[in-house]
């Protein structure tokens, strides 16, 4: 049967359809006009018109993270591609599968400094998992399918496909995904039997064990979270999660110690410091988790399960490295555990839990209410209480509000919590919420935001309005770049250099001018009503919550300190001066 001839743009669209894509986030421009023509002529793929390309990538991330599918972006050459760079770097750090199609000047003009030309593959090489410049018509179908394969397999990540305009206009034959198999990229997903048995032995023999799990569990699909929950409950051991891992184990479970790390729970960090067997599944020993490396969990035997061999022994030397997919390895571990049916040391565990309960009693997330002022923690607590029984997705921006959200919003399952962990991208939350809302039109999607971050991609309010997406933005408004202000207070002698945002807009009026509904709370007594009204309002809503400007985020491990040197609250501040070494760290 002769293959149907199509132009390059039709081939791209056909490949997207065959890859199961139903939505792309994009912005047109000269180099991608042929593709937009092909989009115009079909109705299988919905195009969401963003307001700036950076927003498109975060939307694709929100879409991908909340649905488990690949997020797809389409932008033009030059500035279209360079605007997408931050989002690509974000997706790389947090291992989010994204395919980003970028327009390019025609092949004969590449290198000529043509209008809207940029070396897109050169610029995006270090911030993508892989990228392609399609230089010949016949490569196009293969590259399209490969891009989806690479984005999803192994440790997921962003893939850029740079498409010169002549390739988009030239004719070629389409070939389906079933006709291609990647020549060499085959990440290892299953652990060796001997390693599994050794792991079970170590886990069973622990006296002070701790599960430490991260985003790898979320990326391995909802099944991985179910398996993890089963394994943790079977052992009766305590568990902590990283920022990226929240939801992988139910937060309401008594075995959950909360998030660990710089702003993690006291009990989680001290358990990490004193455990004798650490079971790390899908976490990467990020510096925000480890604190001072030399004193990180000093006495533990470490098991590390990760799909990416380069994550193993990168920061922390481990005793039993296991390369594999979290879902598959957890299944192997569960089966091996059941087959062996070991008897853990009940007596030691009882003592360990007693110690943990002592730490828990410190109630490290406690804060002091005073007068009518709204404490940011209180606002998020109330938001949690009023939305927890709903089908809800939470995104955040970056800063204090993000940490408070991680501390006070409790997630019972995976894919509900979308935050920029690795890159820490301010401006992530609003577009990510829009992406999540596109994937889940009937769900309640809330961006817990800070006012400074919110301004960074505020143009996307217009996107939500255009597609009638009922996103809710819950702005913890303290008029400061709160985390910057907090560091300046604790480490730079209270010299608040450029961390106050003067001349902030009136967010209620901003909402109204973008066809959103605007609400505001300025006193504690108004918070509940504003949240109720926000939920009851059908369309998109900004809830501007004016909170205590001076509140700091605790607990906190100062940079360069160890887990057992954490600050629990404002009264602790003077006790431990920050070391010189710590000052250098970010």
């Amino acid at each position, binding site marked *: 049967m002769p293959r149907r001839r199509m132009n390059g743009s039709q081939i791209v669209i056909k490949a997207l359809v065959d890859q199961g894509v139903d939505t792309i986030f994009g912005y047109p421009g000269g180099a991608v006009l042929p593709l937009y023509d092909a989009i115009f002529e079909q109705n299988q793929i919905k195009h969401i018109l963003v307001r700036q390309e950076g927003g498109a990538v975060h939307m694709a991330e929100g879409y991908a993270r909340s649905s488990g599918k690949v997020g797809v972006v389409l932008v033009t050459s030059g500035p279209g591609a360079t605007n997408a760079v931050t989002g690509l770097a974000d997706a790389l750090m947090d291992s989010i599968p994204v395919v980003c199609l970028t327009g390019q000047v025609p092949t004969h003009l590449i290198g000529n400094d043509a209008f809207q030309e940029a070396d897109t*593959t050169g610029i995006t090489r270090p911030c993508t998992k892989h990228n392609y410049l399609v230089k010949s018509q016949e490569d196009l179908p293969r590259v399209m399918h490969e891009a989806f394969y690479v984005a999803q397999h192994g440790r997921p990540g962003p893939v850029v496909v740079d498409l010169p305009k002549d390739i988009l206009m030239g004719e070629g034959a389409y070939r389906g995904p079933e006709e291609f198999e990647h020549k*060499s*990229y085959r990440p290892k997903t299953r652990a060796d039997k001997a390693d599994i048995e050794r792991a079970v032995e170590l886990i069973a023999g622990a006296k002070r064990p701790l599960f430490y799990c991260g985003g790898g569990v979320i990326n391995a699909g909802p099944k991985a979270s179910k398996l993890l929950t089963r394994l943790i409950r079977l052992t009766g051991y305590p568990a902590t999660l990283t920022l990226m891992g929240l939801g992988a184990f139910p937060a309401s479970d008594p075995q959950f110690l909360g998030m660990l790390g710089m702003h993690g729970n006291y009990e989680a960090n001290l358990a990490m410091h004193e455990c004798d067997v650490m079971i790390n599944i899908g976490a990467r020993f990020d510096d925000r988790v480890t604190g001072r490396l030399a004193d990180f969990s000093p006495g533990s035997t470490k098991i590390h399960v990760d799909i990416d*061999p*380069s994550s*193993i*022994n990168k920061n922390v030397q481990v005793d039993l490295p296991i390369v594999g997919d979290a879902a598959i390895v957890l299944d192997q571990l569960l089966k091996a555990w059941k087959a062996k049916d070991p008897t853990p040391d009940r007596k030691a565990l009882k003592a360990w839990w007693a110690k943990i309960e002592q730490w828990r009693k410190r109630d490290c997330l406690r804060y002091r209410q005073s007068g009518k002022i709204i404490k940011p923690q209180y606002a998020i607590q109330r938001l949690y209480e009023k939305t927890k029984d709903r089908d809800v997705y939470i995104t955040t921006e970056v800063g204090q509000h993000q940490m408070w959200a991680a501390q006070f919003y409790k997630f019972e399952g995976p894919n509900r919590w979308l935050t920029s962990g690795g890159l820490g991208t301010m401006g992530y939350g609003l577009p990510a919420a829009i992406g999540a809302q596109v994937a889940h039109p009937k769900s309640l999607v809330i961006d817990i935001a800070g006012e400074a971050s919110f301004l960074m991609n505020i143009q996307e309010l217009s996107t939500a309005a255009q597609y009638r997406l009922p996103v809710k933005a819950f702005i913890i408004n303290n008029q400061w770049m709160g985390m910057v202000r907090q560091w300046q207070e604790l480490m730079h002698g209270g010299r608040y250099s450029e961390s106050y945002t003067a001349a902030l807009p009136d967010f209620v009026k901003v909402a109204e001018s973008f066809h959103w509904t605007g609400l505001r709370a300025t006193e504690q007594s108004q918070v509940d009503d504003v949240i109720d009204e926000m939920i009851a309002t059908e369309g998109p809503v900004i809830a501007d919550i004016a909170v205590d400007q001076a509140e700091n985020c605790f607990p906190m491990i100062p940079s360069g300190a160890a887990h057992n040197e954490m600050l629990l609250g404002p009264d602790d501040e003077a006790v431990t001066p920050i070391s010189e070494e710590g000052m250098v760290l970010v």
Partner: protein
Amino acid sequence: MSDIERHTISVLVANEAGVLARVIGLFSGRGYNIESLTVAEVDPSNALSKITVVTTGTPMIIEQIKAQLERLVPVRKVVDLTTEGPAVERELALIKVKSRGEKRVESLRIADIFRARAIDSTNGSFVFEISGTTEKLNAFIRLMEPLGLVDVSRTGVVAIARGPGGL
């Protein structure tokens, strides 16, 4: 932490656009050292190239380098020739010496000892071709310095495992 080791790593890659930039970008982006790097296509029918890179670092860093290289999509195979059995290493250099009289004769004599060949000569200069280990080339160049050394071009190390096995 401070035991810095020197390793020769052989990397088989798909010969596609940008692959060398990917490898070099990995080293510069993550702050790894490159002592030398050579690249050429070695299997045209399968479009495969081989990169030989000599790098230094602590054992932990060397392991990281290998894991990071293996993670690149177009990389097919990474072999640490320094740890995985014996290997032979060779480097080639072209060395230009400008001198007359006794110095000129002396440079020829030393070239003979090192089995270097003169591949270009004028009344006042030679270009020597020499191959061998990096240390041998270093020694030869050092001896040429007082004899009118003008210019040096070196290939960097290429290496291959000893014995019958292929990469």
